C-alpha cells in the first residue's frame, strides 16, 4: 500500500494521540473524584474527633 499523503495521514496520527490524551484525562478525572472522596472522609473523621473531644470536655465540667 503506498504511503498516505500528509493531509490524510495527519488525521490518523492526531486521532491516535488524542485517544491517548483522552485516556490520561479520564484517568485524572477519576482520580480527582477519588481525591474529593478522601477529603470528605477526612472531614468526617475530623468532625467525629471534635464531637468526641467536646463530649469529653462536657463530662469534665460536670464532674468538677
Amino acid at each position: 500500500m503506498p504511503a498516505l499523503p500528509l493531509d490524510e495521514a495527519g488525521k490518523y496520527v492526531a486521532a491516535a494521540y488524542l485517544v491517548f490524551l483522552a485516556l490520561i484525562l479520564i484517568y485524572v478525572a477519576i482520580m480527582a473524584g477519588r481525591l474529593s472522596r478522601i477529603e470528605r472522609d477526612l472531614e468526617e473523621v475530623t468532625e467525629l474527633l471534635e464531637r468526641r473531644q467536646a463530649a469529653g470536655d462536657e463530662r469534665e465540667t460536670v464532674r468538677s
Partner: protein
Amino acid sequence: MFGRGLKTLSLVTVALMVGAFALVFFYAPNDADQGFVQKIFYLHVPLAIVALCGFVAAGIYGIRHLRTGDRLHDLRSYVAIHLSLILAVGALVSGSIWARGSWGVWWTWDEPTLVSFLIVFLLYACYQPLRFSIEDPERQARYASVFAITAGAFVPLNFLAVRLADSLVHPRVLSTTGGAMPGEMRLTFLVSLAGMACLYVTLWKYELASKHATFRLRALKRKLADEDWPSAPRRSAAPQL
C-alpha cells in the same frame, strides 16, 4: 508511604513525555514506506510494551503476596493490572487507527500479534469480575494473586509464541537487528518508551497512594465511630487492607 519521590518522578515523566513528543514530530524522519502515519509507532509500541511489562510485574507482586501474606503486595498487583489494562486499551485503539491508515483495515484476524494481544487483554479483563465474585477479602486476595501469576507467566510465553509464528503484515520491533531502525528513529523510540514507563510508574504510585490513604481513613473512621459503624466493609473488587 507510596507518595515518596512522587513529585520528582512526575517531573521526570513530564520532561520525558514532552521530549518524546518533540522528538516524534520535529526530529524523527518520516518512514520511507509508510510516511507520516508511522508516527503512531512511537505511541502504540511503548503503550503495548509497558502494558505487557505491567502484567508481568503484577504477577511478580502476586508471588510476593503469596510468599509473605502482605496485603500491600496484593494492592500493588491490583493497581498494576488496572493500569496495564488502561494502557492496553490505548495500544489496541491506537493500533487499530494505525492499521486503518497503513493497511486500510481497522483489524485483521490473520495476524498473530494482534490476536494474541487481544487475548491477553481479554484474559486480564476477567481479573476485576473474578475479584468482585469473591466476598471473603483473604480468599479474594489469594485467588487474585494466583490469577496474576498464571496470567503473568502467560504473557512472555505468548510473546515467544508470536515470535515463532509467521508474521503476515505486523512488523517486528524487538528483533536482533533492532527492527532495522535508523539512529534518529531508535532514539525517539527509546525516549518514548522511557517516557511511557515513567508515566506508568508515576500513575501506579499515585493510585497506590490514593488507595492506601482511603483504606487508612476508613479504618480510622470505623475506629472512631465504634459500634455505630458497620464492622464489615462493603463488597469490593479492590483489595481490603
